[in-house]
């Protein structure tokens, strides 16, 4: 391990620097010959941000904004096209397979669909203990106790009863708890939660959110919380980044961003979230068109073709993130008018 950087000195657990991930577009041989150049889907196109130790950082955006790809890059499941990811000061791009595997016990994932991420033919106990067997084979005699303990901690009690069940024998909310237990059993520092409760029903969701907040405290976790649902993010995230078409549109403390959205895209997104109050129906019209093709993103500011306040400069110059209020950055040439 890189011993020169002691973890205590690092304020940021994850540092993402000018990250890019371009996926090549599959084409037929003839098209390749005729087109003469390769096309890329620019899923992530120059994104930088830090995740502080112990915080819950939210990444929000519509489908195609690149949020899931950033999450995968952040824990080394994908290799960046450009830029780098530092985890606790360690550059993931410079680690070999063995070192990376060693680091992975410190980063775990909770995926969206618990039914799809649990093996239907493995008992819940076997599924959850897998991580320990891989990362800590030397401590095999302790595995069972750790397993029982983690089941109790996520609210699957009595643990002895649940470890012998199969995924189809328990409810959806309980399955989501199993997936959380599996992520936490190796005692990670960072948990990537990719839409972790999007599949759960409203009446079950509140309990799962509370559980995630409580476990974060208990296990000293740092969350990278990926969501399309701004309302859910409010209950778990300290800071939030709003992505649009592979770029960060706005980033800041969640309370700041929600109460004073400075980017026209964030404003549209906030207005679009339906409000559970029939007296407060939305009256604003929504931006024209839909999220454009990431193969040929618009020039300048990517939001300019749909932006209500766009001017000539917006199609020519790409705005940089600027700090407009303390702890609150937005990438818009004309954000000052919203201050």
């Amino acid at each position, binding site marked *: 391990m890189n011993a020169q950087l002691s973890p205590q000195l690092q304020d940021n657990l994850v540092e993402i620097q000018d990250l890019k991930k371009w996926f090549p577009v599959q084409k037929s041989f003839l098209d390749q010959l005729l087109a003469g150049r390769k096309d890329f889907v620019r899923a992530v196109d120059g994104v930088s941000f830090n995740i502080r130790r112990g915080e819950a950082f939210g990444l929000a955006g*519509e*489908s195609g904004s690149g949020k899931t790809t950033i999450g995968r890059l952040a824990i080394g499941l994908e290799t960046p096209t450009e830029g780098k990811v530092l985890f606790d000061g360690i550059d993931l791009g410079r680690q070999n397979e063995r070192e990376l595997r060693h680091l992975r016990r410190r980063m775990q994932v909770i995926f969206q669909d618990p039914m799809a991420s649990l093996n239907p033919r493995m008992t819940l106990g076997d599924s959850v203990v897998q991580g320990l067997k891989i990362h800590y084979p030397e401590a095999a005699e302790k595995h069972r106790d750790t397993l029982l303990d983690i089941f109790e901690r996520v609210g699957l009690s009595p643990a002895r009863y649940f470890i012998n069940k199969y995924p189809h024998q328990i*409810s*959806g*909310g*309980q399955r989501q708890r199993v997936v959380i237990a599996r992520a936490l059993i190796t005692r990670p520092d960072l948990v990537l939660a990719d839409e972790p409760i999007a599949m759960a*029903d*409203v*009446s*079950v*969701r*509140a*309990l799962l*959110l*509370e559980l995630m907040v409580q476990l974060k405290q208990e296990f000293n976790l740092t969350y990278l919380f990926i969501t*399309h*649902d*701004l*309302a*859910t993010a*409010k*209950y778990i995230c300290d800071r939030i980044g709003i992505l649009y078409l592979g770029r960060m549109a706005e980033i800041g403390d969640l*309370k700041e961003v*929600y*109460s004073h959205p400075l980017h026209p895209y964030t404003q*549209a*997104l*906030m*207005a*679009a*979230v*339906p*409000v*559970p*109050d*029939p*007296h407060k*129906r*939305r009256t604003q*019209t*929504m*931006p024209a068109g*839909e*999220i454009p093709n990431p193969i040929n993103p618009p020039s300048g500011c990517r939001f300019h073709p749909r932006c209500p306040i766009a001017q000539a400069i917006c199609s020519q110059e790409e705005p940089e993130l600027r700090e407009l209020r303390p702890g609150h950055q937005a990438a818009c040439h004309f954000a000052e008018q919203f201050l």
Partner: protein
Amino acid sequence: MNDTTPPLVQIRDLSVTYKTRLGDTSAVDKVSFDIRRGEILGLVGESGCGKSTLGKALLRMIMPPGRISAGQILFNGEDILTFDDKRLRDYRGRQASMIFQDPMTSLNPVQTVEQHLTEAIQVHDAGAESQSMARRIQALIERLGIMQSRLASYPHQLSGGMRQRVMIGLGLVLNAGLIIADEATTSLDVIVEAKLVDQLREIRDVYGVTILAITHNIALVAEMADRVAVMYAGNLVELGEVNRIFDRPLHPYTQGLLASVPTTEINERKELYKMPGEPPNLARPPSGCRFHPRCPVAMPICSRYRPGLNEAAPGHWVHCWLYQDHPEKEEKTLKVAA
């Protein structure tokens, strides 16, 4: 709205049963309500509450092992359960149509948008001339904001929002009076969803169609519906005007549901209500009121007898013992008095 016109749809004691290995499962259990002409009725509930089954039953699309086991569905006064095949085909499409959640699986991948729309007209309206058909399609796509050039596109070439608009177009092209939108906006991003909601409202205003919006998203119902029906475990638990339901929900389930909806409002960072338990397995539903094991104010009677649907205030119906007289209610007050 003129109260003397009969409702478009009258559902009476409707039950839908699925045969499963564990025995009969009552997905919809003795549900009765009306859908008024020209209204947007929001039907909300969680997964497995029977809301989609109810939507399908309205088009008689329940497939074995499921069946409509009891009740009546009156459309314009006629019981659709008595329709023969020919009459049923005419009813589906021309009088009532459905918009499904996932347009990618509901559209034919090898047909263009235009072919979809033309086929819908031809199947239900064999005598239609090609010129009048073209005019109808033209007017429709203009209203829905589908570009002329998109008529030649195949489903995979369209964005999710555009596909959903084509689905709405298919629902409207035959001038159906009732549109059942089953989670029609669920797979869409919020901005696209908001636009589609605007569109559904506009369609109602312009064409006067009646919309049954089936959704799990309570906030969406607040955004678009005139009246709200709440289902839980196969039962209709509450029904009323949207403002009534959101301002003064009566059923403990509705109350809990509304209190557990997250919002983006930063100042009211109030705790979400954490409803205990999970929705029941309908093969073995709880006795009495199906909500009683999760209910914070359950009384002894709730586990023994099923409450009726009671009109607690004008137009506000609730399926709960709290709002009706029963022997134990008196007992309870007596005890308090003593």
